[in-house]
């Protein structure tokens, strides 16, 4: 459904939602809810929580449809990001505050802007290629963080390494990934 729906149609439906078109909202839900429910289910790993989350996600989409800027992101990526971020917020709220590390970290002035993202299909091959340049375990950890919303603690335990080792792994992998993606 969602993956076969032409991207322009989805963008159009989002734009109509911003104009408070309820019929468009229903169509958008029909075409995209299976994808977004897949996202909340995979991250929250609890059916009733995922059902609650998907409702909140679509209420958010209705309320924030005017924030979607066509051309910046593919519309389905934007919707997945809303669902994924909402599920991650719920995960974070579930976790004890004790996993708060490195709060003193400062971000220095930013460097040059990265170039604009290329077409989705090209991106897909690109990220796969670059993940392929990492050690398989580390690539798997990056995927687990993105797709399953695993925390550093969960990743450390899945890969049976100390927490700090996992953080170091991940950060180095992300730096390597960035180099590969921008080359």
């Amino acid at each position, binding site marked *: 459904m969602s993956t076969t729906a032409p991207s322009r149609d989805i963008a159009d439906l989002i734009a109509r939602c911003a104009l408070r078109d309820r019929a468009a909202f229903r169509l958008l839900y029909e075409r995209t809810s*299976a994808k977004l429910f897949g996202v909340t289910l995979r991250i929250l790993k609890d059916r009733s929580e995922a059902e609650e989350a*998907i409702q909140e996600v679509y209420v958010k989409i209705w309320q924030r449809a005017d924030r979607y800027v066509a051309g910046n992101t593919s519309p389905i*990526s934007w919707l997945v990001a809303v669902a994924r*971020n909402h599920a991650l917020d719920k995960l974070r709220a579930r976790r004890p505050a004790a996993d708060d590390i490195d709060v003193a970290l400062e971000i220095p002035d930013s460097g040059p802007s*990265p170039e604009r993202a290329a077409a989705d299909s090209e991106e897909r091959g690109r990220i796969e290629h670059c993940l392929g340049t990492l050690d398989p375990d580390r690539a798997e950890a990056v995927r687990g963080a993105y797709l399953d919303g695993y925390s550093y603690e969960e990743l450390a335990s899945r890969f049976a390494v100390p927490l700090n080792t996992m953080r170091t792994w991940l950060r180095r992998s992300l730096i390597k990934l960035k180099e590969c993606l921008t080359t």
Partner: protein
Amino acid sequence: MSASDDIGGDHEGRNALVAEYVLGLLSTSEHERVGRLIEADAGLRAERDFWVARFAALDDEYAEVPPPAHLYAAIEARAFGEGQKRVSLWENLLIWRGIAAGALAVAIAAIGFNLLQPAPDVGTLTTQLVAALEEEGSDVKFVALYDGSGSVRLTALSGEDVPDRDFELWAIQGDNAPVSMGVIPVGERSTVTIAPEILAGWGEGSVLAITLEPEGGSPSGAPTGPIVAKGAVTRI
């Protein structure tokens, strides 16, 4: 080597931190802090967009799972407020936030309850509750949030003090008499501690009300003045 050694203030460290933000690996407070930094810096926003776009290429791996059919009606009710006055009031809140208080005198309070316990067990849920309160005869608007710490944080969106009078917040649960949650200031943020007996019975269907009382609050312990705002608590 400590975890922060290799992300210390350099350019690469910055890249990794924004990527960690996008992946959702940061703790709540760090996530919020980095989010604010990103919002304030065009370069960091571009960095964030870079990672969002790149990782979005993995979205194909999310399998499609049709949600249960009954959910859509609930979503419409929440989003459009159909058949649920409290939801339409919530929608109204979004509108009122952007306009000056008009001739229609309305009070709104929204309350978000996070029932997360300090040491969450497996399966602990975070529940968010909202109450939109309305009563003609007042221009007071409030947003109230509960973050699990045992107190409600109230933010007045509009409203003015009434000379020699105070606003008092009440909890009404079931058929019980209203229980005072104390006097609340208008026009500024405040925090109201929730008594354990109120917290124990709190949840969907509880009612939050605000009345106008003599200075210092109701002398009798029961509401004596006019209700300026009232509404049922509901999940969001």
